[in-house]
């Protein structure tokens, strides 16, 4: 096993800079907030800019399948920047989860090239809270001939998806299907979600025609792989969220005065921020390790993912909670963006397995079993 590379390469820093520039121009907090209050928080123009102009939709898809031929390390950097802006785009659903599934299940399928080019937006129809180790979902059944019926709740990025990848119990066991969002019998109902910038939807299927992509063992393995990769990369989004919260709070406390002093000169506050910074340093190392190990397909990937999720999920929440608290009254307002980050952080903590779930997974992976009985 070669030593992990935990730093950022020059290419990754260039990619970060271009994503950041685009987001600075087109995704200021005021715009994100305004959108959340409208009919749909998604910003299709921003998504097009990222997916097509910058080409991040298929970043880690090999060139032979129509992608940019980079690696999951680069995709992780994009997620850091999207997290830093709580950007309302379907990157997680389409470029991470659905792309991950297609890559693992059927890379030759022309669908992958379309998704990688940003020409079609897809998502993976599982509840966002699904953990990588959960069993194959059984809420959708496929009849012989590929008509799907059932219901999947709390699906991320389903509102904008033109296509859904649906795990279903078929006549011959588990299988994966592609379903057109416009197909007759398909319903996508928006839920009121805790996270305003990543809305969830319930998907109902009533004898919807589906195209089978994979079945049996390969389907089960592909789903697990996609969820594992998603969980590992989500750590980078959580890092981005935490970094914004920390740096915004530091800047605020440098300026804000009470008791004839700048608040940042009070040691009780300084120590809280120093501790938060320390945990963010750890989160960066853990998120980089997960991305690097996933990119290399290393044998330690499952440990790396569980580790990153166990640490980064809770850290992002703490950073967002401190951000609200240390901004005082203004932190409690709708107008200040802190709440967008708190909501994203809390929802991300539940997404793809909670920290507690991932710690329990580690117990098995690193041989620290619990008491019997």
């Amino acid at each position, binding site marked *: 096993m070669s030593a992990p590379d*935990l730093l950022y390469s020059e290419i990754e820093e260039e990619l970060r800079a271009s994503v950041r520039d685009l987001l600075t121009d087109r995704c200021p907090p005021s715009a994100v907030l305004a959108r959340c209050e409208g009919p749909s928080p998604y910003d299709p123009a921003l998504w097009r800019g990222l997916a097509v102009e910058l080409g991040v939709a298929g970043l880690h898809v090999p060139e032979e399948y129509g992608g940019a031929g980079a690696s999951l390390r680069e995709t992780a950097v994009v997620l850091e920047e999207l997290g830093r802006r709580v950007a309302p785009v379907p990157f997680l659903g389409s470029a991470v989860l659905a792309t991950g599934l297609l890559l693992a299940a059927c890379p030759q399928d022309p669908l992958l090239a379309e998704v990688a080019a940003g020409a079609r937006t897809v998502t993976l129809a599982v509840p966002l809270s699904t953990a990588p180790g959960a069993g194959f979902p059984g809420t959708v059944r496929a009849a012989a001939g590929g008509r799907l019926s059932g219901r999947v709740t709390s699906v991320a990025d389903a509102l904008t998806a033109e296509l859904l990848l649906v795990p279903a119990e078929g006549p011959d066991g588990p299988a994966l299907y592609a379903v057109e969002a416009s197909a007759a019998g398909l319903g996508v109902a928006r839920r009121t979600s805790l996270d305003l910038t990543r809305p969830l939807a319930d998907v109902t299927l009533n004898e919807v025609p589906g195209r089978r992509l994979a079945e049996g063992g390969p389907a089960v393995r592909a789903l697990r792989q996609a969820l594992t990769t998603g969980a590992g990369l989500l750590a980078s989004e959580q890092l981005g969220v935490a970094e914004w919260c920390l740096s915004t709070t530091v800047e605020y406390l440098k300026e804000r005065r009470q008791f004839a002093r700048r608040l940042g000169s009070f040691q009780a506050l300084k120590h809280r921020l120093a501790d938060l910074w320390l945990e963010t340093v*750890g989160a960066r190392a853990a998120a980089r390790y997960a991305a690097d190990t996933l990119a290399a397909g290393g044998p330690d990937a499952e440990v790396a993912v569980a580790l990153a999720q166990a*640490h980064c999920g809770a850290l992002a929440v703490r950073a967002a909670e401190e951000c609200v608290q240390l901004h005082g009254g203004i932190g409690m307002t709708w107008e200040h963006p802190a709440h967008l980050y708190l909501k994203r952080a809390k929802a991300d903590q539940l997404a793809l397995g909670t920290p507690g779930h991932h710690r329990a997974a580690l117990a098995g992976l690193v041989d620290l079993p619990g008491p019997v009985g």
Partner: protein
Amino acid sequence: MEAELRERVRRLLADHDPAGTDRLDFLRARFDAGLAWVHFPPGLGGLGAPRALQALVDAELEAAGAPDNDPRRIGIGLGMAAPTLLRYGTEEQKQRFLRPLWTGEEVWCQLFSEPGAGSDLAALATRAVPEGDGWRVDGQKVWTSTAHTARWAILIARTDPDLPKHRGITYFVCDMTDPGVEVRPLRQLTGEAEFNEVFLTGVRIPDTHRLGGVGEGWQVAQTTLNNERVAIGGQAMPREGGMVGVVAATWRERPELRTHELHQRLLKAWVDAEVARLAGERLRQQLAVGQPGPEGAAMKLAFARLAQELSGLEVELLGEEGLAYDDWTMRRPETVDFNGRQAGYRYLRAKGNSIEGGTSEILRNIIAERVLGLPAEPRTDKDMPWKELPR
């Protein structure tokens, strides 16, 4: 560079077969071959190579069965005195001190803290007064680790009490065999005496043993303190290499001790330990490509917290056995031994991790002010002459 290093290692081993060579002779030859600390300059135990290549040299020599210089026994020399000598020492000082320091022939200690100056180190009161071609030093130091085995000390003393506290300090190398130096063991809560009180009475220090300019000791001391933090927190380790490995081993071997509550705490601590290890690894990778980050203080803070959490957990896990202690005999150890002793010792000794080398509170201040750029505490004593400070 890598190939050249391998070739040098090969030649050293060919000329000095570790099996047949006296330990000290081997270490001296290694130093002279530039393979002691490869990032030091040629002639001073190094080759001016990237620091990251040291691991390669160490691994090859270890594989060949070569003796090491027992780095834990001489940690203060290696971690603190050497980088300071390198940066501020004269050519003669470097030539005189670095080789026996590295081979372990001469142990070093650090005469910084005083009864009245710990966290506020710049408030120190030990006086150095010019006398003949050197200085006469009087004062008292405390908490001095390894003073009882040390041949030399790095010492800071006040040379101008009329200046504000940071400005009137000078940095010296002190000879621990000078008749004015008296070392008294100071027993600590583990029962043993790893550190000491040191009384300095009319100690004679030649001016050639001064490091840096007169009155510039505080800047010199910064080099020592920064290196101390990296030295304490920054060693490369495999997974479960530190205290977490000890606790995990007990957990695996003793299923009858497990409880659900301890399982949760153990998993949390395991995650924290592995995250801290990776963060340390990231710090080393940054240093290796020449982007030194401020994570040095952070690593020491993280390791102190972890060592305390884990060692406390271990005592609880052991239940009735945790009520016992291995040995209260007053001893004078040469090193801190976290692995050779029992859980109770580890628990007690780990309490020092958040005090020695700068307390965790002081490190948080450093992170908040120097890394995050938060405003400094109001400092009323900043421009006041040292002799007028309230004490």
